[in-house]
C-alpha cells in the first residue's frame, strides 16, 4: 500500500504523461449524446475532489469563526492553559501543540534513521531477490492498523519496556511510548519514498563514482544521497505530516492530561488526542465546546497544509533533473 500511495502521494512528483489528443471535429462522425453526457459525468466526479476540499475548509472554518468570536486568536495560539470545558475555561492551545511536537520529534528520531537505513540497504546494497523479500515485509509494517499499534504502545512499550524493564519513572501513559511506536509506524513511509528516490538516480552516477575510486559507502553518501535529496526530503516531510496527524496511537497511549509537556516520560494530549477525546463526550452543535473541536481541527489542517507546502517548495529547490 505504501508503495502506491507514497509514490504518488508525495508532493511535487508532477505527472508528465500527456493526455491523449482528442480527434478533430471532422473525424467525430456520428453525434453521440451519450458521449457528451458521460464526459460531463466524469468531470463532475473529478469536481467532487474540489468539493471535498472546499467542504473541509468550510466545515472547519464556520464553527471556528464562532469560536474566535468568543476566544481571541492570541489567547488561543499563545495561551498555555488548555481547559476548554471547565468552569474557569481557558483556551490556550500550547499544551496540545507541545505534546504534538514531542511525539513528532520522537517519532522522527526513530523513523528517519531506520527508514533511511532500510532505504539505502534496499536500493544500494540488496540483490533483486533480497529486495523482493524485504519490500513486501516493509509494506506489512505499513499495513498494521494504528489501533493495534496503540494497543502495543500501551501494553508492551509503556507497561513492560519502559516501566518494568527500564524502571523509568513514568505512569500508565507517556508521550515517549506513543512517539516510539509512531516512529516505527512511519518507517515504511520514509523508507519507501526514499528508496524510490534513490533507485531513480541513474546508474551512471554510481559507476562514475566507483571509477573514481570511491567505495560503496562513499558513493552512497556523497553521490546518491545528494542526488536523491528532493525525494528523501519529500519522504521525511510526509513522515512529519503523518506523525502530526496520527490519532489512535496517542489517544490510547499518550494520556489525557492537557498540560505543557516538558518531559517525554509524562503524559500529554496532542491536538488529535484532544479531538478524539472530546468527541467521546457530547457536544451540542453550535455550543462553544463543539466549536472548540473544529478550531483545533482547523489548526491541525493548517499545520499539515503548511508542512505539505514546505515540502513542495523544498523538493522544487533540490530537484535534480536527469
Amino acid at each position: 500500500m505504501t508503495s502506491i500511495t507514497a509514490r504518488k502521494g508525495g508532493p511535487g512528483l508532477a505527472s508528465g504523461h500527456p493526455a491523449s489528443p482528442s480527434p478533430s471535429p471532422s473525424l467525430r462522425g456520428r453525434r453521440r449524446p451519450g458521449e457528451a453526457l458521460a464526459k460531463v459525468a466524469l468531470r463532475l466526479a473529478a469536481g467532487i475532489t474540489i468539493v471535498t476540499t472546499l467542504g473541509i475548509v468550510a466545515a472547519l472554518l464556520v464553527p471556528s469563526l464562532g469560536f474566535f468570536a468568543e476566544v481571541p486568536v492570541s489567547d488561543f495560539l499563545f495561551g498555555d492553559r488548555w481547559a476548554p470545558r471547565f468552569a474557569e475555561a481557558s483556551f490556550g492551545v500550547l499544551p496540545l501543540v507541545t505534546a504534538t511536537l514531542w511525539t513528532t520529534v520522537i517519532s522522527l528520531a526513530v523513523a528517519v534513521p531506520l527508514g533511511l537505513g532500510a532505504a539505502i540497504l534496499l536500493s544500494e546494497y540488496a540483490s533483486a531477490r533480497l529486495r523482493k523479500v524485504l519490500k513486501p515485509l516493509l509494506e506489512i509494517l505499513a499495513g498494521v492498523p494504528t489501533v493495534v499499534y496503540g494497543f502495543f504502545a500501551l501494553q508492551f512499550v509503556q507497561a513492560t519496556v519502559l516501566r518494568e524493564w527500564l524502571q523509568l519513572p513514568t505512569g500508565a501513559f507517556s508521550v515517549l511510548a506513543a512517539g516510539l511506536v509512531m516512529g516505527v509506524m512511519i518507517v515504511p513511509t520514509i523508507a519507501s519514498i526514499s528508496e524510490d528516490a534513490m533507485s531513480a538516480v541513474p546508474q551512471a552516477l554510481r559507476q562514475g563514482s566507483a571509477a573514481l575510486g570511491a567505495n560503496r559507502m562513499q558513493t552512497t553518501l556523497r553521490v546518491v544521497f545528494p542526488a536523491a535529496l528532493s525525494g528523501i526530503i519529500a519522504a521525511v516531510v510526509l513522515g512529519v505530516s503523518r506523525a502530526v496527524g496520527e490519532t489512535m496511537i496517542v489517544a490510547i497511549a499518550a494520556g489525557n492530561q492537557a498540560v505543557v509537556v516538558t518531559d517525554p516520560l509524562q503524559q500529554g494530549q496532542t491536538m488529535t488526542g484532544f479531538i478524539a477525546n472530546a468527541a467521546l463526550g457530547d457536544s451540542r452543535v453550535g455550543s462553544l465546546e463543539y466549536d472548540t473541536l473544529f478550531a483545533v481541527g482547523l489548526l491541525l489542517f493548517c499545520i499539515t497544509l503548511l508542512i505539505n507546502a514546505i515540502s513542495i517548495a523544498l523538493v522544487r529547490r533540490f530537484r535534480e533533473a536527469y
Partner: protein
Amino acid sequence: MTKSFTKSAVLTAAIGAAALMLAACGGQPAAQSPSAAAGDALSGPVVADGSSTVAPLSEAAADLFRDAEPDVDVTVSTSGTGGGFQAFCAGETDISNASRAIKDEEAEACAAAGIDFTEIVVANDGLSVVVNPENDWADDLTLEQLQTIWSPESEGEIMNWNQVDPSFPDQPLTLFGAGTDSGTFDYFTDAVNGEEGAIRTDYSPSEDDNITVQGVSGDIGAIGFFGLSYVEENEGAIRAVAVDGVMPSTETVQDGSYTPLGRELFIYVNNASYAEKPQVAAFVDFSLENHQEIAEASLFVPLTEEQVEVAQDELATLR
C-alpha cells in the same frame, strides 16, 4: 479485454452481494429464545446514553434482556451524565443514565422541548477515592485533605503528596478523574470542593472511568475517583481509601454512613418513548424486575427495599 473487465465487475458485484447477504443472515436471530413475559417477540431500538458510571448497569441489563428479547437493539453510549442529558432533552435518546440528579436547567430544557420524563433510582453508589495499590501511606483521607488535593486553588501548587500531609512521603502527585460531562465529576466537585464544577484543571480528565483506572493503576503517586462498581471490578489494580474513616462498601452506602460521597444512580425515561415504543417499556420494566440480578452482575450496590417500592410507584405512573 472487455471480457476480463466484465468478469472483474461481476466478481466484485458478487462479492459485494455475498457480503451483504452474510450480514443480513447474521441479523436474524440465531437460537430459540425463551419467550418474553408479553408473549410476542419485540423488536426495535432502545437508545441509552449518559453516565459511564451507570453504563455497566445498562450493559448488564442489555445482556440479560437479549436472552428474553433477542430482536431488540439496545445501544448504550457514554457521553457523560451532562452529555446524556443534552441528547435526552433533544429527544435523541429513550433513556438517560445519570450518576447525579437532573439539574434545574436541564429539566427546563427538557420541558421547553416538550420532553416529559420519569426519574427512577436504579442503584446506589459510593463515589470512591482510589490510589495505587503500592501507595501505603494514604489509607484514610479527610475531607480537608481531599480539598487540598483537588480544589481549584491547588492548580499548579499542590504537586506532591507531602504537601497534603507532612507525614506523607516525597512522591509526586498525579491526578486522574472524570471529565466535565460526567455526573461523577459534578457530584465529586460539589461534595468535596463545595461547588459543582470547581476543580483544579491540571489533572487527566476522561469521560471513561476505565481510563482513570488504567491511569491510577500505572502510577504509584496517582489518585483518582469513580463509582464503587469500578473499584470492585478492578480490585487488584487500584485500592479505595477511607473518607473520614469510612470505607465505601455496600453496607456503608446503604446505611448512609459513607458520606458525603454516597449517592443514588438514576435512569431517566422519556415518557413518550415508554408509551409509544413497547420495546423501551419492556426494557425498563425488565431492568426493574430483575434489578437484584443486574446489580449483582455489574457489581453495583443494590436498592434497599424502600427504594424498590418508590421505584415501582414511579413506574406505575408511567403505565
